């Protein structure tokens, strides 16, 4: 297991609600999304697959480029592929706006 922390500048749209989606099952992940507490969108990831820090960073960059939001995000990951991660993040975001 590896823990990763990232900060991104907060976007203009604040999320409104706390939302949890997904399950920590093989190839899947859980996303907890809630309003950002400060000027950063903080992301904490705990993943069963160690050594993919750069991939996560790139993936989150894509997410925050697509969506101009401010959110605090926690991810508990059990080896989900990048498309699954993006899908879950967007699912959470959709439910939280």
């Amino acid at each position, binding site marked *: 297991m590896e823990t990763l922390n990232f900060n991104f500048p907060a976007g203009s749209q604040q999320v409104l609600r706390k939302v949890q989606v997904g399950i920590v099952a093989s190839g899947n992940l859980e996303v907890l999304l809630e309003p950002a507490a400060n000027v950063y969108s903080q992301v904490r990831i705990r993943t069963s697959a160690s050594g993919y820090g750069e991939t996560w960073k790139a993936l989150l960059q894509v997410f925050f480029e697509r969506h101009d939001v401010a959110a605090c995000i926690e991810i*508990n990951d059990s080896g989900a592929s990048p498309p699954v991660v993006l899908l879950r993040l967007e699912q959470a975001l959709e439910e939280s706006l």
Partner: protein
Amino acid sequence: MKGKSFCEQNARERARVLLDHGTFRELLDPFARLESPHLPPQGIVPQSDDGVVVARGTIRAKEALVVSIEGGFQGGSIGEVGGAKIAGALEMALRDSARGRPVISVLVLDTGGIRLQEANLGILALSEIHAAIVELREYVPVVGVIAGKIGCFGGMGIAAALCSLLVGTEIGRLGLNGPEVIEQEAGIAEFDATDRQLIWKIMGCRRRMEIGQIDLLVQDSDTVLAEAIAEYCEKTLLEPAEARVPRTRQIESQLKKISDYPILPRILENTALPARTSVHSRGLLWFQALTGNSAVTPGAGAVLASDVQWGGETVRAIVVVPNPVKRFPRARDGQVGIEEGWEIARLVREAMTADEGREKRTLLAIVDVPGQAFGINEEILGLHLSLAAAVDAYATARRAGHPTVALIVGKAISGAFLAHGLQCGQILALNDENIEVHVMSEASVARITRRSPEEITSLARLVRATARGIRSFASLGAVDQLVNCDHSHSIDAYCVANVRSKILQAIGEIRLFPREPKMRLDSPASQESRKMSSVVRKALEAEWG
């Protein structure tokens, strides 16, 4: 088909669909952040709700609780936090129901049983869950739903058997030992865990329905399932609780079924009777020493009982011993097998009947059980139900005012210990490093958790609950007294007198102040080593409403 698949939904969606529309309110939701503190140190990613969803709402406008286990996370296994959520929620439902505010309780079971990574923390939580169900079902319907891909096994299989109503689908399966564990423990000739047809033929809910071990088989539809449960609860709330005899109390008919059952010939071929007939059993030695009943030898049965008079106290000692000529090959080494669970239940209830209206005798469980029987015959007959019968008997006797004391003198493993010992009001143990308390053999733990035996040994140093010694178990606050006794050679008279006085002391304490399993959490050791079990319960009470 009417409705959507129930099986395909996650635990939270399942809980929501069983409650009246719009009434779902989750307690200790993911943002309460009560996750397992034991998994990350083992390199395992935790889940924010520890795989258990607790929700309140109504069912046909009646107050209800739904506890839903997420089979997708760690096989739906029960660790400390998830276990405390289940037990704590049932305890709250019980509190309200006993005060005249009934809370219908539904358990959505998709679980392999105790989480091996949290081992003895799980087994203690299970004993509390069992105790709560036995009591709660006297007030309200406690409904178990077995509808997921994992099914319901281990200590949760016992919990299922204790429910007042069991509902299943074709996808669901129910048993005590999962196929992989049986294969690991007893060999592939006993059970081929890759044979899915065989598994469902034996453990599938359809089969369980045919032999009366579940009550309703419904199609995999959320609306059909919700309606069936609501219908049953509405009907049951109107009739008196004593109108139904729980299946865990149908002892005579079950013992008859078992004695009529022909053991599969291929199993008999594979398990020739051993040449030896003598047995070494700490349980038997202590039983004989404490009761003075040395005439009893194995061969007379695998469960022995004897009533003794100690001062003013009548004590019924019960022990499970090896029996090399037993009919069921997988229970010849002192395991709690299909006959033993029911026999323990019979012996306990016999004492309850005899003592009705007068001073209740003590029930002393002498514990030396290397585990439950791992065998195909046992699963065919429903070992989970047999063990549940013993759990029910001890719990009911305890609540009826019989002092119940467990004395651990040898092994205290897994489902066998849940059935014979863990429902007791007090637990005493010899302070002997050879005594083992655990949920599964090291080989099986290695197989199920995909770790090497070396990893498991080093883990035991890190996570106390996975260690196997009695002192580690005692550090969880589960042992009321460790009794010093040099056990290396034989049992001397001094030892016996000492143990007997400790038992009498425990009986005296219980007579003054009745005890139940959840009170183990009040011990100073528990406050530290099972901190989360208390934290979860307090948080749950605050959100209960």
